[in-house]
């Protein structure tokens, strides 16, 4: 009799528990009710950086009186900032030396003896007084130019729309397309999920391009074949994460790579072999939901960031001067 009573108690408690679980789940986890995203990866843990890994300190910031910033380049002691529909020439003290009106906002800039601007799908060349020297034909409606790099003979343009890097002569003649899928050249093609696609030239004149979808940087021979590459895919500080990183990149002395990432916004430095060296600017040094800053290196070896959210040019110097 006692046994039967015990069984009855077990059954009643279990039945109530079943009814409670189903009823509670049905009401609490109802369709459309705001729930925790079960697929969410909490990125906060990766935004933490060991202070010992931060090799640079912010030394100066120049506030720009602009609405939108787009790109930054440095030549000699002058900084060239594309902002709104203008090109600003700014000195180290933050004084605006010159300002040129542009027909449309530029998406990328490179400067040597003259100024090269990408206007979404075409390239124009200005002299330092803002006069248009050359204006090349557009590259079609699909083209989205996101980065430029220039040397004495060529202009390299990264096209996120067509997922290719163009090499033009200074006269606008297309020499070759770099990075298209080509098994003979060992190239699997660029993966560019969003308009973040950067290029830069190394000290010895070889082109490096970011392959953001695979978190890698690719180095090309002169003939467009694969020279070398390196890749770091990880959400940890030493790697790149998300759909498309690094978003921006430049090359400093000794072919060190300075990279800027979106998502977990941070700027880092890698050696010439792609080995992680340390952090220039940690995520907590940017606003929440910030964009990846554009990166450059000036003559003094300082790393210069164009902070799109704060609309500032920010300078970072190595804590250890030997770096």
């Amino acid at each position, binding site marked *: 009799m006692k046994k039967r009573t015990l069984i009855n108690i*077990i059954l009643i408690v*279990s039945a109530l528990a*079943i009814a409670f679980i189903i009823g509670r789940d*049905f009401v609490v986890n*109802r369709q459309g009710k705001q729930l925790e995203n079960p697929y969410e990866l909490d990125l906060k843990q990766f935004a933490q950086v060991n202070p010992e890994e931060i090799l640079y300190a912010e030394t100066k910031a120049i506030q720009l009186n602009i609405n939108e910033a787009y790109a930054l380049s440095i030549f000699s002691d002058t900084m060239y900032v594309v902002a709104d529909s203008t090109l600003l020439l700014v000195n180290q003290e933050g004084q605006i030396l010159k300002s040129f009106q542009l027909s449309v906002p530029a998406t990328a800039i490179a400067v040597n003896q003259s100024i090269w601007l990408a206007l979404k799908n075409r390239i124009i060349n200005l002299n330092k007084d803002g006069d248009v020297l050359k204006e090349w034909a557009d590259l079609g409606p699909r083209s989205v130019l996101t980065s430029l790099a220039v040397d004495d003979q060529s202009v390299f343009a990264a096209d996120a729309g067509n997922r290719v890097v163009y090499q033009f002569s200074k006269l606008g003649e297309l020499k070759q397309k770099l990075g298209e899928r080509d098994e003979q050249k060992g190239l699997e093609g660029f993966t560019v999920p969003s308009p973040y696609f950067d290029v830069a030239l190394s000290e010895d004149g070889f082109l490096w391009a970011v392959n953001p979808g695979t978190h890698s940087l690719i180095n090309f021979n002169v003939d467009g074949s694969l020279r070398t590459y390196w890749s770091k895919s990880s959400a940890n500080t030493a790697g790149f*994460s998300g759909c498309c990183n690094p978003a921006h990149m430049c090359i400093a002395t000794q072919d060190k790579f300075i990279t800027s990432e979106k998502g977990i916004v941070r700027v880092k430095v890698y050696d010439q072999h792609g080995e992680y060296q340390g952090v220039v600017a940690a995520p907590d040094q940017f606003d929440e939901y910030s964009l990846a800053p554009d990166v450059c290196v000036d003559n003094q070896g300082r790393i210069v960031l164009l902070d799109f959210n704060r609309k500032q040019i920010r300078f970072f110097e190595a804590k250890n001067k030997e770096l």
Partner: protein
Amino acid sequence: MKKRLIKLTLLIFFICLAVTSFAQQQRFPKPEFETGYVQPPTQQPLPRALFLEYLDVIVLIGALILVSWFLLKKRSRQGVLWTSVFSLLYFGFYREGCICAIGSIQNVALAIFDPTYTLPLTALLFFLIPLITALFAGRTFCAGVCPLGAIQDLVAFKPIELPRWLQKVLGLIPYVYLSLAVLYAATRSEFLICRYDPFVGFFRFDGTFQMLLLGGLFLLVGVFVARPYCRFFCPYGVLLGWMSSFSKKHVTITPSTCIQCKLCSNSCPFGAIEEPLLEEGKRRSNVNRLMTYLILIPIWMGIGGLSGSMLHGTLAKFNKTVYLAEMLVQNPDIRFNQENIDARTFMQKGKTMDELVVDAQKIKSQFYWGGWIAGAFMGLVVGLVLVNLSSYRRRNDYEPDRTNCLSCGRCVDYCPVK
């Protein structure tokens, strides 16, 4: 020669499996973060090659034929038991509980009410084949093919008999569940049966804590109350019961003359064996009672339909569009709350509030009419239960209740008449 043929067949089968696993590899594998990130459990397993889906149908047909043969020809409980173990391994653990005849109710309901939904042929076959089989051989699907039934059958160690009245009351739950499952599927709100499948977490070795707990509780209850999910929850069991009532051939307890030893009745853990019955009371009053209950059926249906329609507002709140619309109308500022994933998704779609409200009203209207139909159906069920209780059918021997008998074959095993 035969052995060679079997070996060859098995070899081809496993090669096919291997080839398919290559073919379905994702082009881009799941993102692998070096972070210990764990993919949350999903309701559905990964899709597989079409021919393997047809293989599932063939296995289903094969298992149904085998169980029917064991029951009707061989009268072997052992055969049914081992087939159910196979089904548990194949449809449960290998196929991870999907595709499933029980869940296919929702696919069929959705296909009927939503012309944009394409019903997979395999889902239709999984829905129809066990029902057609039940029409000829009783609930052989429940006996040895359903993995949910099999897992419960294996833990029914100490079954007790529940009072008849309690069985009747609990036996109404599957009808409510069926009504709600069809209503929510037809309004594109939710696949309730899949969401509350208590054993799928075990089959996939994966599941939220509360779903594993739910499965564990069902199994705990199943130790004392045999197959509680099948008897008091399963909505597909309702349809199978109807079909089985008209089955051409149903398992019989004894192959010849019943000696009325009552062993079968004691052996049945489901209380699905009806005892010999003689008419009690006066015939005229019995007939009068039956007629009264028959006349009351439309009234039950009306009351049920009205109640269902009155509940439409509450029921519709569990539709995500209705819920979102009501939430945003009451608190328009939520639209701009980046933390609210539903509001953010709505804003990104580019729809206006007016369009959302119109959509929500349309769905509420569907719930209104669906509530009427579901309520009327429940009223009909209650009315028929009362009619069934008051109708007299003379029985001289112990016979299985064709509607509720799960054709497990235990009674066959216990019957001393061979």
